[in-house]
């Protein structure tokens, strides 16, 4: 199917239906509708990208859209517990595309912080940030912007350090195939600090879902924003996720994205280091089995002096799983003393699994330190044999080696509760405990 048809169906739907939004979101919908036809017309998929995760393929199925804002039963929403307990977080539940504040949020909102629905009154600045996402180069973001009717807005005042993490639990629950547009906007004022944890779960894991997600992060001078993401949805839940981050002077971004379970997941990180001394630390791991597919794309743009960026992405691919990594580092003219490093390492555990990686450097400046490396290989056969001679069964040896391979990504996480929990989640996932959402390691449902 062509992109015109794939995305055009949603544009038609938008035009034919009565808009449920007001204010900034209505404006966002309209801007997207205006920009879409030309964007679709001019869009060209990159020659190197895999067919499965091209926009035309991802948006091709005839998904329903929750135009009437039908909410899911509250008890279902309430029955979900995230896999990261004892977090003592400020919890938001997004049921399909509808924002639910929880008691933990409304009763504990720290001074100097706002966490609210994008349907609420937004300051003009926040609305302006939303509109900035309307870029012709990203039709998937336009599609999301066209249909977005809710979302999460997080704002931290100047100089405020929020110790408690904000946790956004995304739940899919629908008896029929559905596309869910999700938005998150995080604005950290000067010298503030905030940590956000996102996780995806599916209730009806046999029903097709498309999670269309756009996350925007603004870290103003000296601010620190950390965004962690755990994808643990059903095998029929696909995702097109775009994260935009603008990092200003001496500000710092930590982005960590983990694929533990899901369907076809496409994740694009567009990070701009805009102010001198800006710093970005990107990491991710993917454990893909069956016919799962993880597609990770990074565009890291150094547009400042003394910018620093680190990237490490690791994948382990089983069965017929596929992986793609497209990482681009751009060092703009005048971005002196840039220090950028990117690493992508993959392990192909089963013969039929595939990995494709395409790193790129575009450097328009001297005086920079830039490195990138990508490797794809198998588990160390010598290590396998050594472990087996000690009586460790092949499957367990394989699991231990894969876990060891992933360990540095997890160890790198400074958010301690999450780090510990993720070690366990990775171990459980590798021991095959999470075949579907119902049996998944986090037992986020039912457990209380």
């Amino acid at each position, binding site marked *: 199917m062509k992109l015109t048809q794939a995305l055009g169906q949603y544009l038609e739907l938008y035009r034919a239906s009565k808009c449920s939004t007001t204010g900034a979101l209505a404006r966002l919908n309209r801007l997207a509708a205006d920009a879409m036809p030309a964007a679709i017309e001019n869009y060209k998929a990159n020659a190197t990208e895999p067919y499965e995760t091209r926009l035309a393929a991802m948006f091709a199925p005839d998904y329903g859209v929750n135009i009437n804002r039908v909410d899911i039963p509250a008890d279902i929403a309430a029955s979900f517990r995230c896999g990261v307990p004892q977090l003592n977080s400020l919890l938001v539940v997004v049921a399909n595309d509808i924002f639910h504040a929880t008691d933990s949020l409304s009763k504990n909102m720290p001074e100097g912080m706002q966490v609210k629905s994008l349907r609420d009154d937004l300051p003009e600045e926040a609305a302006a940030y939303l509109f900035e996402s309307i870029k012709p180069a990203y039709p998937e973001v336009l599609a999301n912007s066209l249909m977005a009717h809710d979302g999460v807005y997080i704002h931290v005042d100047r100089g405020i350090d929020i110790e408690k993490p904000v946790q956004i639990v995304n739940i899919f629950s629908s008896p029929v195939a559905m596309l869910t547009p999700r938005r998150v906007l995080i604005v950290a004022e000067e010298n503030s600090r905030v940590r956000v944890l996102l996780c995806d779960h599916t209730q009806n894991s046999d029903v097709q879902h498309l999670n269309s997600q756009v996350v925007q992060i603004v870290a103003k001078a000296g601010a620190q924003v950390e965004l962690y993401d755990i994808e643990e949805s059903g095998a029929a839940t696909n995702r097109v996720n775009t994260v935009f981050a603008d990092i200003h002077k001496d500000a710092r971004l930590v982005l960590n994205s983990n694929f533990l379970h899901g369907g076809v997941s496409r994740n694009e990180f567009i990070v701009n280091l805009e102010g001198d001394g800006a710093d970005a630390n990107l990491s991710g791991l993917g454990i893909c089995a069956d016919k799962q597919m993880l597609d990770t794309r990074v565009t890291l743009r150094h547009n400042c002096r003394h910018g620093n960026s680190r990237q490490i992405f690791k994948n382990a691919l089983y069965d017929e799983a596929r992986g793609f990594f497209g990482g681009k580092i751009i060092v703009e003219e005048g971005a002196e003393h840039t220090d950028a490093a990117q690493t992508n390492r993959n392990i192909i555990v089963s013969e039929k699994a595939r990995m494709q990686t395409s790193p790129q450097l575009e450097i328009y400046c001297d005086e920079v330190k830039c490195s990138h490396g990508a490797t794809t290989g198998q588990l*160390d*056969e*010598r*290590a396998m*044999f*050594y*472990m*087996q*001679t*000690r*009586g*460790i*069964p*092949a499957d*367990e040896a394989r699991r*231990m*080696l894969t*876990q*060891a*391979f992933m*360990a*540095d990504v997890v160890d790198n996480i400074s958010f301690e509760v999450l780090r510990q929990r993720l070690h366990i989640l990775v171990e459980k996932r590798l021991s095959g405990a999470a075949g579907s959402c119902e049996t998944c390691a986090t037992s986020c449902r039912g457990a209380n």
Partner: protein
Amino acid sequence: MSEELLKVKDLHAGIDGKEILRGVNLTIRPGEVHAIMGPNGSGKSTFSGVLAGDPRFTVTSGSAFLGDTDLLALSPEDRSHEGLFLSFQYPVEIPGVTMVNFMRAAVNAKRKYLGEAPMSAADFLKLMRQKRAVVELDNKLASRSVNEGFSGGEKKRNEIFQMAVLEPKLSILDETDSGLDIDALRIVAGGVNRLRNQNNATIVITHYQRLLDYIKPDFVHILYKGRIVHSGGPELALELEEKGYDWIKQEVDGE
């Protein structure tokens, strides 16, 4: 139960179509120590690898039984569970897997094979402490990745430590003496001797008499070009030490 602990008959094995073992015969009874010597490239490591189930090698004919167990029919892990242990000539480094997790997995896998419950944390720590003492291995190594950054001596002591934990029926020590200074050699040999009893047996693969001064063999075999070409008592090792391998090579190649 047969009298023999290990019985290898006319074993042929190779790699990528190239034959390395060309008919090895060896019988070992409980309580015995056998030394296998021979020039580099004779097939000593191949022989130990084939017994342990190294997937790089293909067995083309012959048999190998550990007691009544057909070794060649088992996976490497089951060979271990049945009581075979290989101390590697080159122990493998495993970044990211700590010694303690590695050993716990090994111990509990064997218990599972034997139908026993996993060992309690306290018992496991006690076991580790006891067995470390056999080769005076530093406790600090427990939290380190397997063999990663270990000195040559630490790697070899680590092999014997694992052997002490697993209490095999048959241990094959492949050049466990190479790269050891005299103190380390004494510790390693002392460890091996402490683990010896009436019911188990040891194959010591070595180039040098040095190790055999500490671990006294009952039999000495010379492996050359994939065959055991000479067998004798401990005096054979002394003869080799004196005369080198040339006479063996002449004897075999000259025919």
